[in-house]
């Protein structure tokens, strides 16, 4: 395991994890407040990316970054006001079902408006270069800002890995957002009302606050956060109709692993999953190699060779769900969840 691989995997993992947290935070807020699991949360993420693409084509990326979350957040608040509130009286299962139906509708609408193929949604031109390069020379490890230095080509055996500027920007946005949510919830009056409505809705209502409107704002805010993640994620990865499904299930795994309704847990779980996945993707080791380490030989004749020989990079996709199952067996309340009543 060389140092530059370790560093870059860690950084990539952090950036994936922070992106996941942008989604998971909104989902967790909505869940802990209204008890509604927003199945369509990842759909709002996707809509965010698509809307941003359209705006960015008309003006530029920065306008899109600011406006797309607002538009999607307004749509989310409207959905809460006119649809979700209507089924609230039927209980939690119909609420979950209606967001499930919404995810179908959004997916089809997106294909209807933007087509079925991937869109060329790119980071802004000023951010397409590398932020820094990790240079691993036979003499030692160093970091150079900007593009790879000359030494990368000149010295034999040099290992250079670049870290894109936009990836770093995405991390910055996520961290800023994290701080902003935390400040909003703990230091402002509206945050106080939200927290009160979360734990004692009747009492808050009796004190004269409009709790349904608080719910609507939280739902709108949560979907706006998802859309913000979508703008970053869409430009960083691919903007295509499959992007919601791809990320949606992982985000659900994140909030169960972190503990239902725990914002801090969601943060830990998303960073953890991001880092684990990033290391797994870059590794070609398998269980067979692990056994060989202990001196046990695994050959194609060994029973269950298909299982032992699967590479870590192939397993990467299922790691979140494996972790989910393990957590449920050994710690059913999640990493930082509260004990259930």
């Amino acid at each position, binding site marked *: 395991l060389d140092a530059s691989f370790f560093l870059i995997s860690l950084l990539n993992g952090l950036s994936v994890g922070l992106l996941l947290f942008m989604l998971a935070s909104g989902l967790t807020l909505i869940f802990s407040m209204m008890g509604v699991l927003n199945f369509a949360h990842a759909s709002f993420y996707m809509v965010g990316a698509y809307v941003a693409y359209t705006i960015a084509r008309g003006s530029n990326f920065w306008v899109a970054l600011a406006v797309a979350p607002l538009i999607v957040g307004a749509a989310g608040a409207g959905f809460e006001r006119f649809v979700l509130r209507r089924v609230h009286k039927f209980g*939690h299962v119909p609420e*979950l079902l*209606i967001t499930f139906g919404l995810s*179908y509708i959004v997916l089809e609408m997106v294909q*209807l408006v933007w087509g079925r193929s991937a869109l060329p949604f790119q980071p802004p031109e000023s951010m397409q270069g590398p932020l820094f390069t990790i240079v691993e020379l036979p003499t030692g490890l160093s970091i150079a800002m900007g593009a790879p230095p000359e030494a990368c080509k000149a010295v034999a055996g040099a290992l250079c890995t670049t870290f894109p500027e936009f990836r770093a920007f995405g991390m910055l946005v996520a961290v800023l957002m994290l701080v902003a949510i935390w400040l909003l919830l703990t230091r402002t009056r509206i945050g106080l009302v939200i927290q009160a409505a979360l734990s004692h809705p009747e009492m808050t209502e009796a004190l004269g606050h409009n709790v349904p409107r608080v719910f609507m704002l939280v739902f709108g805010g949560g979907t706006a956060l998802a859309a913000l993640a979508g703008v970053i994620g869409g430009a960083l990865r691919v903007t295509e109709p499959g992007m919601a499904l791809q990320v949606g299930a992982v985000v659900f795994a994140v909030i169960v692993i972190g503990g239902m309704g725990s914002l801090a847990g969601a943060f830990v779980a998303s960073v953890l999953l991001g880092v684990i996945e990033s290391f797994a993707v870059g590794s070609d080791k398998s269980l067979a190699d692990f056994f060989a380490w202990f001196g046990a030989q695994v050959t194609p004749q060994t029973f269950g060779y298909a299982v032992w020989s699967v590479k870590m990079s192939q397993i990467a996709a299922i790691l979140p769900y494996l972790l989910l199952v393990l957590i*449920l*067996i050994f710690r*059913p309340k999640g990493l930082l969840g509260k004990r259930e009543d």
Partner: protein
Amino acid sequence: MPRMHEGRPHYHFKPYNVGRWIVWGLYALVLLVAPLVWTSSLSHTMLSQMGIAIIACLAFNMLLGQGGMLSFGHAVYSGLGSFFAIHTLNLVSAGTLSIPVSTIPLVAGGFGALFAILLGYVTTKKAGTPFAMITLGVGELVWAMSLMFPGFFGGEGGISGNRTAGQPFLGVTFGPQIQLYWLIALYTFVCTAAMFAFTRTPLGRMLNAVRDNPERVEFIGYSTQRVRYLAFIASGFFMGIAGGLGALNFEIVTAEVVGATRSGAYLLFTFLGGAVFFFGPIIGAVLMVLALVLLSELTLAWLLYLGLAFTFMVMYAPGGISSLIMMNLRLAAFGKLRDLWTSYLALFGCGLAILGGAGAMIEMVYHLQLNEALGSKLKFMGMALDAKSAESWFGAGLVLATGLGFFELTRRVFITDWERIQEEIEKEIKRREALA
């Protein structure tokens, strides 16, 4: 009512439940007569699929309707059942295993239950919303694994088999579709009866209690988790049978049978049919096959229509189609249906207008998006539309707006009528009670 009888002092006289015998008789009759009425090979294929879907949706509803558990990954159990069925079938073909082909669905059911035992242990630790998320996670886990082990799951191409394997029994080879249909119909009837019987067992009753008041169930000494777990296993068994029949029907199993789309379809159509009544999922299953086979041929936007129908159903009739039927049966029983049929007719007409207007618009957008190369002309319900002309858009918009306007008007009248009639029925019930 206990009656004394010579020799048998504790004989309980209980009359036959005639209504139930008639309903089950009719159900068997429909299963028997359907392939004789619709004789084309397409309809035989569709009827076979309907039988399979009925088992699957009823098994799904054991959780959703009876137990209040919403599973987003139930295709796992039918799908794994399918894979084990096709591998068993191939073993039979190779001659290493000698069991009749007709018992393969039972083998698949066994494997479905086995995986429900394994995975359900984790899944049923929670109820409510966390349960739904965990099933989703487990579903994704199995789906990702199915792509990881091409040896067992067949990779992209899937695994194929041949259902005519083994010795023919009384000349039945299962080669022709109709022979397989009889097998499926038999399984469908027996499984439906078994699942109905399940709702009458103490476990089935406890499951309802766990759905309605888990706290109280814990208080009287039952473990809600255990009840959920047992019901989950039973459901997994029937899902496995459905999967096994599916493997025999298609003779090929690909990884998508364990995928999220299939799980979503079970949920969507079970709910559309109605989770509240036992027979609801049967309606849902029939709709599922009709939608997957016919509607998807008719329009590219069928998933959009489906999503919209589902959303409106959740909002306005959370009991599904079966609850609508039962509500109107109640009206008919009190002789009030004739007061409402004009309203129904008007609502239906306005609904058609809305569907026509919105449908024309959706089809035009789809046409522009996907079939641009074929020109801007398209046909919709026998009308020629031009997706690029203002006239077509204006026309569709006008139809839609008119439909919406009249729908709202009739809806208001209908609601007041409906509430008045419900009140009258309540009064009538009270009056009868007073008389009795």
